[in-house]
């Protein structure tokens, strides 16, 4: 039962997407073109994210660590 209502909900969500982007009004070949373009862009963005985001995150983490690391050394010297 849960699977059925889940499938209904997903179908309803797909209908909303169709209505908002007006692919409800398009002919089948136009829909194919539109969805191909959209899915291609989405896959490219996700792939770029997959490659670059961990590297950027680790670089940013190291940068902040270096910043706070320096400050820690400074405070230590003043206390002394």
């Amino acid at each position, binding site marked *: 039962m849960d699977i059925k209502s889940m499938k209904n909900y997903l179908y*309803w969500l797909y*209908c*909303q997407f*169709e*209505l*908002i*982007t*007006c*692919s*409800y*009004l*398009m*002919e089948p070949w*136009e829909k194919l073109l*539109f969805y191909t373009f959209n899915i291609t862009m989405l896959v490219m963005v996700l792939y770029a994210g997959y490659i670059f985001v961990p590297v950027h995150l680790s670089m940013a983490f190291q940068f902040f660590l270096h910043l706070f690391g320096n400050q820690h050394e400074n405070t230590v010297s003043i206390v002394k």
Partner: protein
Amino acid sequence: INHIVHNGGLYKRPFNEAFEETPMLVAVLTYVGYGVLTLFGYLRDFMRQWKIEKCQNATEREEQKDFVPLYQDFENFYNRNLYTRIRDSWNRPICSVPGAKVDMMERVSHDYNWTFTYTGRVIKDIINMGSYNYLGFAQKTGTCQEAADKVLSQYGAGVCSTRQEMGNLDKHEELEKLVARFLGVESAMAYGMGFATNSMNIPALVGKGCLILSDELNHASLVLGARLSGATIRIFKHNNMQSLEKLLKDAIVHGQPRTRRPWKKILILVEGIYSMEGSIVRLPEVIALKKKYKSYLYLDEAHSIGALGPSGRGVVEYFGLSPEDVDVMMGTFTKSFGAAGGYIGGKKELIDYLRTYSHSAVYATSLSPPVVEQIITSMKCIMGEDGTTVGEARVQQLAENTRYFRRRLKEMGFIIYGNEDSPVVPLMLYMPAKIGAFGREMLKRNIGVVVVGFPATPIIESRARFCLSAAHTKEMLDTALKEINEVGDLLQLKYSRHRLVPLLDRPFDETTYEETED
């Protein structure tokens, strides 16, 4: 609700009008939808130009390709690429009397709305929420039909002449006396076509050297009449009295543009109910302004005659004012009386002048006799002169239906424009795909609605317009409301956040352009 105090006690009853603001997300998504459709429109136009696709719309002939292009403007682009995709919601052929329920011929399209074929089936008993049948006089049985039948066998259907030549029947004289009595004016004149009443009589009343102040959202017939007259036209914001007063002050102080002479006449053009917004004109304030600045008022009661007021006499009675304050009262017989044609009522000198100088009287054929009899019978019914209380009951039923329907729709969470008492109910749709989807889904559920988009409305504010009728019973309204609720959930149309914007009541200046929350 605070207008009663602010405007010096002009209003005897609360004036509840609201135009909820478009939610930001909805506006953005609407533009996204139109953007996608525009891109695909360009693609299709490109394919048609390069003969990849067959061109099914109108184009110039080969020999005319070097002339000034006819079909390159935005209206034609919109027509080819957007309107055609949802065209099956309009021009639907009906095959019975447009009463509370109507029969429709079913049609299908195999090439995406470029051509239609009839399947031969007739869809019966569709609840009609689109006809201007406010008092339910669109009937094929009853006293009106019998009277019209008798007159048809006596006079025939055609008049074959204009009013001034041989087309002035005694029926027309009877009708005009009745209309004058109904409205409470000295004299009235009836014309064959409502649109022509406006467009042909405004040029007879004003000319060059006069000033016309017309509302932003006036009907095409008023705009056409104003332009044909040759007078200077200035537009004031919809139902905004501060804007109108500013224009009147400027007109009186500065006079005509170059010569600074005073204007010969200043005519204010307003409508009783605006059919696309469902708003009612602020008549007490307009009349107060008119008297203060000594100008004339032309009131077009096309939708409000018969539909407003405790006894159906229109917007003047609704506000409790005297009909002598309005200089030219115009209306149509198409909406509440179930007939065709228009009328103008006013002082005797004005109507006698129009009998001679109106283009419609000189050149247009007069009303057909059975139609005249329909108007006479329905008007007598509304006034109660046929001895029954049917007319009064209908007017009250319409008011009840209006209040009930509007309240229920607002409770469900739709954005509804307009005044609480107007029988025209616009329900906002906004997105282009939802226009087509709403029309089709409602027809699947056996309810006929009218959906409106560009160019009748601004491009993002497309709507579905319901016209209530005294012929709708509560059961029909309940069925319709249930289906509208279902379709609203299916298409996600319940945008309202119950954040009603208070109407602008501060003095108007250059910085106040929209009614925004303080």
